[in-house]
């Protein structure tokens, strides 16, 4: 509490500064030039003095001018971040209304910096913004995927092309080994779960702000270490009601597949050369060669996407509102899959006296139809299309599903007969009240309470005729129904005080209390014995002791809470020097009694170099130049269990009797991972603001990493989650934005951003050989996280067809030994970014965007199955046709009689790719055509998403999926583990109308 008291003291000092003198008063209203809306929070200062005030929620101010001042020299300085400041002579007037215009220069941009809003000039940290309108029309179910390549330092990797699938988002490199690495997402001040973005309408979003360095993230304390994405939703503006409607319709197709499998005649020839496992006769071969099923075509389709959105906004100077609704219907390219989403939103804000009341609320309902991916199991349609021989057909002559000779499931039967449906209901909203304390201008009290509610209802049906439907208890199909709900409350209460003293000093101090409390429950049942007329609950056969149909039921639950006190201080001197301080104290229910509370803090400085006198001669060259530097810390508590520090017992049942089973060992010392970041950079504008550049360097060190301290397995456990170890991420970020041509009718702009991130493990558990090896991955001190650790493959010995490897002495050997494993690159992406350009001529606009990653490696586990000659009964990659058959043959594929070693460089590939992410062509009809019809605006457009991808990766898609955002599998990124649902290639046509 000591820190909080200190800030209280500062506040008292501020209050004492208030002079008490009353002689004459100037009053007035400040409005925005374009909309005419009243502007609250505008600073109105008597020039050359510390005497000033702020406008209230109605834009009104009243400034007292002491007697005895020479009235002819008096002037007001009226300023607000994001607006061009004005100096207005009083000239004896008692009422002065002011109209401020938006400032379009870079350093005047208003930035949402989390709990507060700042002028970019004042921002001392690393903050990237993406305007909502840039990505609002992207035909993607989950909005974070649309941010790919848009913000420096933020790496967005699509997990999947499945409609609505969430992406993996990393800000400035992976900062944890076992903990969560997803950033914190905040919508209108409320924490939202990163897994459920697909039930939110991205068209409702006004801005995305990516907070990257410590001064920006330490305000989020124990949740800020992975960076924060702050989203604000659109607000209404005063004025007549504006209606906007937009509709899109388009098609998605499958991207190119670069892993070529054998066709029928190739496969049959291969089988005959390798033992003829099915004993084909010559007649069989001839008959089957004539069949050549492309299983990919059987499973995939050209899918339709439809998107409608409607919004209305308006209001008066007291109350503004925005209402919106949308329908998003996206079919997946895999048959039967897709997303149907319906959303609605109401944002209302009302002012009364010194009070502002507001409500932002949205609800969404989504229906998902999914298929399994990122698994190497058979009975998964996306694997079956790889593994089924092309001489098999989906249907036999009678129109029944065929059963394959190899025992592979019929992919079409699986996708048609087995369903995985989910309905999600989401509510996200907040109410807030702000109050300008009239007795003390500059003091604002605010409280903001909101919730993120998600419920999912799922139904997974396995038809008794399919393989998965037979491999269940009772062997006659299965219906699994599940329901879960999760609700998280975020409540933030604050007092902030802004004051100017002297002509040179501005101060903002804010105190906060925050509560985050989440809880969820879920339950479900699995019934058996289906196959009658019903494929739902009605079709379940009641279980008896002998029929094997006894249903299974389950329940689950979770809860956690966070209690925080924090404070922020911003100090500006002469509009040139800015200082920010943040301190936060968090208590979490997740941690042991020994470490339940932790403190975070940061300091940041910025310096507007171009304001200095010595730069005056250069202002025509360098219009704006800002230098900034910050240091501080934030924490991470994601990725571990809600009660990870406790000894836990689970329910256990044996012979129908209930009991307890120890499930977790206690670790009362468990605490947060802590990421300390140093950040510095320049922001530059030149050529009259037409070229803007940002360069930043950062060094982040994560300490107290969650790692598994190894235990003797004789405890029944292999390890205990503990805070050991450290790692670092350091890097450079560049962003360039330029207006190449600017004229009345024609503008051409281009932008580029890229990030280089170096990731290195500093310390792991124990000393000596403390590598953490997990399959083909290694985490080793001094190396990048998730490095690949395999034996180097060295081709084939032409004499005997044996696979060859390089040993540690770089000598060729035919003996495979794990002792010869070496590090061959990492799954972590070191270099990534995006670039785009926009051309605008009168009503025409062409806008395009590319994204790229370079330098990462991918382990292509998919190939270890289709390039394994032991699976001769199933379909194989065409490269196996080159396998070694006779002495002297030069090839890279060993003889088939040798067991495949999959943990070699043969299956490590480069993850580099360049993707043409989006192309938008639009035409806005001229105003004069529309006026007669009383239509405000009409735009027609066409866009393409993922139009092309340049890569050498052997698969559908080099953006590698991980099955879950958190959990075991996501801890091994960069692995194509079987079934892949590739990103959609979509072409859309649309129309926007504004009334």
């Amino acid at each position, binding site marked *: 509490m000591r820190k909080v008291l200190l800030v*209280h003291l500062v*506040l008292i000092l501020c209050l004492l500064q208030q002079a008490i003198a009353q002689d004459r008063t100037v009053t007035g209203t400040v409005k925005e030039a374009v909309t005419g809306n009243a502007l609250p929070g505008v600073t109105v200062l008597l020039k050359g003095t510390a005497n000033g005030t702020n406008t209230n929620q109605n834009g009104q101010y009243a400034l007292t001018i002491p007697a005895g001042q020479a009235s002819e020299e008096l002037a007001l300085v009226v300023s607000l971040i994001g607006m061009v400041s004005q100096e207005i002579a009083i000239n004896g007037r008692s009422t002065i209304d002011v109209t401020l215009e938006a400032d379009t220069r870079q350093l005047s941009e208003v930035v949402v910096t989390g709990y507060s809003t700042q002028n970019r000039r004042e921002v001392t940290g690393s903050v990237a913004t993406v305007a909502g309108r840039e990505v609002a029309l992207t035909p993607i179910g989950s909005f974070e995927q649309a941010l790919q390549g848009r913000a420096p330092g933020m790496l967005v990797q699509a997990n999947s092309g499945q409609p609505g699938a969430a992406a993996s988002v990393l800000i400035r490199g992976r900062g944890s080994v076992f903990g969560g690495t997803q950033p914190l997402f905040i919508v209108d001040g409320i924490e939202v779960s990163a897994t459920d973005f697909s039930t939110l309408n991205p068209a409702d979003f006004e801005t995305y702000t990516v907070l990257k360095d410590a001064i920006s993230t330490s305000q989020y304390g124990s949740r800020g270490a992975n960076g924060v994405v702050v989203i604000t939703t659109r607000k209404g503006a005063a004025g007549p009601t504006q209606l906007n409607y937009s509709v899109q319709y388009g098609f998605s197709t499958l991207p190119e597949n670069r892993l070529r499998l054998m066709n029928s005649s190739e496969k049959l020839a291969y089988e005959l050369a390798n033992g003829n*496992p099915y004993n084909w006769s010559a007649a069989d071969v001839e008959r089957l060669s004539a069949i050549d099923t492309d299983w990919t075509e059987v499973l995939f389709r050209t899918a339709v996407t439809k998107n409608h959105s409607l919004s209305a906004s308006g209001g008066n100077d007291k109350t503004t509102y925005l209402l919106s609704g949308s329908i998003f219907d996206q079919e997946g390219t895999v048959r039967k899959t897709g997303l149907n989403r319906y959303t609605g939103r109401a944002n209302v804000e009302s002012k009364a006296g010194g009070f502002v009341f507001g409500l932002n609320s949205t609800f969404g309902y989504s229906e998902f139809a999914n298929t399994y991916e990122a698994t190497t199991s058979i*009975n998964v349609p996306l694997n079956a299309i790889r593994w089924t021989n092309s001489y098999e057909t989906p249907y036999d002559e009678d129109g029944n599903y065929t*059963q394959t000779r190899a*025992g592979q499931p019929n992919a079409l039967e699986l996708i048609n007969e087995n369903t995985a449906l989910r309905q999600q209901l989401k509510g996200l909203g907040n109410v807030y009240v702000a109050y300008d*304390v009239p*007795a*003390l201008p500059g*003091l604002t*009290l605010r*409280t903001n309470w909101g919730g993120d509610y998600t419920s999912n209802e799922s139904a997974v049906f396995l038809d008794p005729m399919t393989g998965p439907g*037979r*491999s*269940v*208890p009772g*062997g006659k199909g299965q219906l699994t129904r599940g329901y879960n709900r999760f609700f998280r409350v975020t*409540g*933030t*209460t604050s*007092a902030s005080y802004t004051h100017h003293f002297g002509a040179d000093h501005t101060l903002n101090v804010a*105190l906060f*209390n925050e*509560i985050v409390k989440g809880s969820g429950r879920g339950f479900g049942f*699995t019934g*058996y014995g289906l196959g009658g007329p019903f494929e739902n609950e009605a079709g379940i056969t009641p*279980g008896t*002791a*002998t*029929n*094997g149909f006894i249903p*299974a039921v389950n329940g689950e*639950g979770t*809860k956690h*809470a966070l*209690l925080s006190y924090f404070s922020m201080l911003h100090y500006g001197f002469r509009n040139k020097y800015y200082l920010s301080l943040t301190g936060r104290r968090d208590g979490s*229910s997740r941690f042991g009694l020994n470490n339940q509370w932790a403190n975070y803090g940061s300091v940041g400085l910025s310096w507007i170099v171009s304001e200095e006198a010595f730069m005056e001669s250069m202002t025509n060259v360098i219009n704006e130049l800002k230098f900034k530097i910050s240091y501080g810390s934030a924490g991470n508590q994601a990725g571990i269990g809600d*009660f990870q520090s*406790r*000894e*836990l*017992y689970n329910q*256990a*049942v*044996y012979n129908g009797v209930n*009991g*307890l*089973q*120890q499930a977790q060992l*206690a670790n009362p010392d468990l605490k947060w991972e802590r990421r300390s970041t140093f950040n510095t950079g320049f922001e530059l504008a030149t050529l009259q603001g037409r070229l803007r550049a940002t360069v930043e360097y950062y060094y982040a060190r994560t300490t107290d990493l969650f790692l598994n301290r*190894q*235990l*003797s397995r*004789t*405890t*029944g*456990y*292999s390890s*205990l989650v503990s805070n050991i170890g450290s790692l670092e991420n350091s890097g450079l970020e560049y962003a360039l934005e330029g207006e190449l041509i600017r004229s009345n009718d024609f503008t051409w702009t281009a932008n580029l951003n890229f990030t280089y991130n170096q990731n290195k493990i500093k310390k792991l558990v124990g000393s000596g050989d403390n590598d953490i090896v997990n399959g083909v991955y290694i985490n080793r001190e001094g190396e990048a996280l998730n490095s690949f650790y395999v034996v180097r493959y060295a081709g084939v010995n032409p004499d005997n067809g044996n696979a060859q490897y390089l040993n540690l002495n770089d000598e060729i050997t035919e003996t495979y030994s*794990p002792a010869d494993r070496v590090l061959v690159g990492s799954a972590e992406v070191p270099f990534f970014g995006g670039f785009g350009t926009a051309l605008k001529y009168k009503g025409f606009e062409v806008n395009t965007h590319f994204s790229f990653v370079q330098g990462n490696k991918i382990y292509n586990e998919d190939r270890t199955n289709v390039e394994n000659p032991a699976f001769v009964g199933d379909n194989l990659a065409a490269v196996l046709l080159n396998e070694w058959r006779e002495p002297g043959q030069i090839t890279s594929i060993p003889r088939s009689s040798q067991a495949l070693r999959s943990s070699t460089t043969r299956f490590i590939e480069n993850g580099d790719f360049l993707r043409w992410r989006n192309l938008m062509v639009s035409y806005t009809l001229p105003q004069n055509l529309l006026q007669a019809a009383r239509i405000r605006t009409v735009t027609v457009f066409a866009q393409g998403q993922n139009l092309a991808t340049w890569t050498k990766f052997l698969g559908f898609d080099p953006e590698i999926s991980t099955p879950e955002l958190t959990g075991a599998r996501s801890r091994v990124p960069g692995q194509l583990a079987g079934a892949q649902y590739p990103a959609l290639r979509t072409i859309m046509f649309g129309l926007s109308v504004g009334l």
Partner: protein
Amino acid sequence: MKLHTVAVGLSLGCVLAFSACKDIIEIEPDLQRAGSPQGFSSLDEHEFALTGAYALFRAPAYYGNGSHTTGSWASLPDMMADDLVQTTEDFGNWGTQANWTYATDEADIEMAWVAAYSVIGQANLTLRNIDQFAATDAKRVNRIQGQALAIRAMAHFDLLRFWGESLDRNSAAKGVPYKTTVAVEDLPARLTVKETYDNILKDLEAAEALLSDVDKVLNTPTNRAYLDQVATQALLARVNLYTKEYEAAERYATSVITALPLADQAAFPGIWKDTYPANSEVIWKVTYSPGEGNVGLGIHIGSVNRNLFRPATHLEGLFNQANDVRFAAYFGSRATGNNTPIYAGNSTPASGGPIARRIVTKFIGRANVVDNLLDWKVLRTGEMYLIRAEARATQGGTKLVTALADLNALRAARIRNYEPVVIVGEQALLNAIALERRKELFAEGHRWFDLKRTSRTITRTDKEVLSANTSLAPAAREWAWPIPQGEIDANHNIEQTTGYN
């Protein structure tokens, strides 16, 4: 005044929703129970923990099956020997064990090690401080303590069977660590085989004594899911056979046989469908209910009809196929394809000839369900007869007669119209008993250990997968499993099994 407003505003944040700020983060789990360093505070909790220990036997690496593990003490010991044959339908997930190519980093071996020590850990949690209740509720304590000791001993014995460098009673070769306390930071060393046996026998004998005086009957006539006194005696018979303490083995086996005689020919096949005759044959089984896993998936996955291991041709040839009730209960044939029927023994489809694809039918499912959902039978009276026969035959002299009588009695219970045979000579009788063991206990988790404790030689004559290894010599290191690399890395006190360094 104004500061007061600020303070009120801030604390309002808490007060609106909660009685006190600090309560917000004081949360207890609802669906799990938090433990305490002091252990349990009621006898009910000890009993709950005992149930948890039993449940752990179902784990994939013990008797159950997971995606990459097959019951280590269920059918794996048979897959590693000569009477089960890996087929070309096999996924190869257990190839390293079945073909003896394991090294220290073999994940399945680590899973087995952890699975057994998890059972032991849970038994030790059950036992910790249970004596505090002995004065107030002695018979209930006896019941809980006796079972926990028996569980602990049995899991250690199972560990010793795989990891022990020898199975001789007094061997100074490496055994396994014996855990009797709850200690997370403990880094135990390997005991010798002798010391391991000392502990196993001590726990088992104590358990047997405690279970003689309990507050209630543990098992019902047709559902013997708990280690009661009789089951503990059966375990003692088994351990004493391994230690070659034949008199003790004979004595304990006799007690068990008296309490739970053999099933008759009519009832025997039903056992493999979980239809249990009252008070006979099954001494202890680990029960499986829907959702609790499956058994025998490593051999034949009934639901999808995948035959990973098939019975060896020579083994089937050993049976009197027409009259031995075991033949139709253990073996059958099934064509490939969806939902194809299973033909027991040598029966054939009404139309068409015999199906060549032979399957093991012991673990197919209850009643007529083909889902591998069955109890795992750990101890059977058939084994007790074979233990007693072997113990008597080895003691020689007049006991050769009773040994032969045991063998004939077992066969008479299994083979219709059986005529007792006369076998002359101790070795001939022992050979006949060993052969009967292969037939009676096929795929129940004995063959590898029987070979390990006797000839230490495997010669496979029947193989299907080209890469399968066919012989293992007595001196091979593979007769004892390697200590998992993770254990070696975490525990500097433990020594690797000879040959794996």
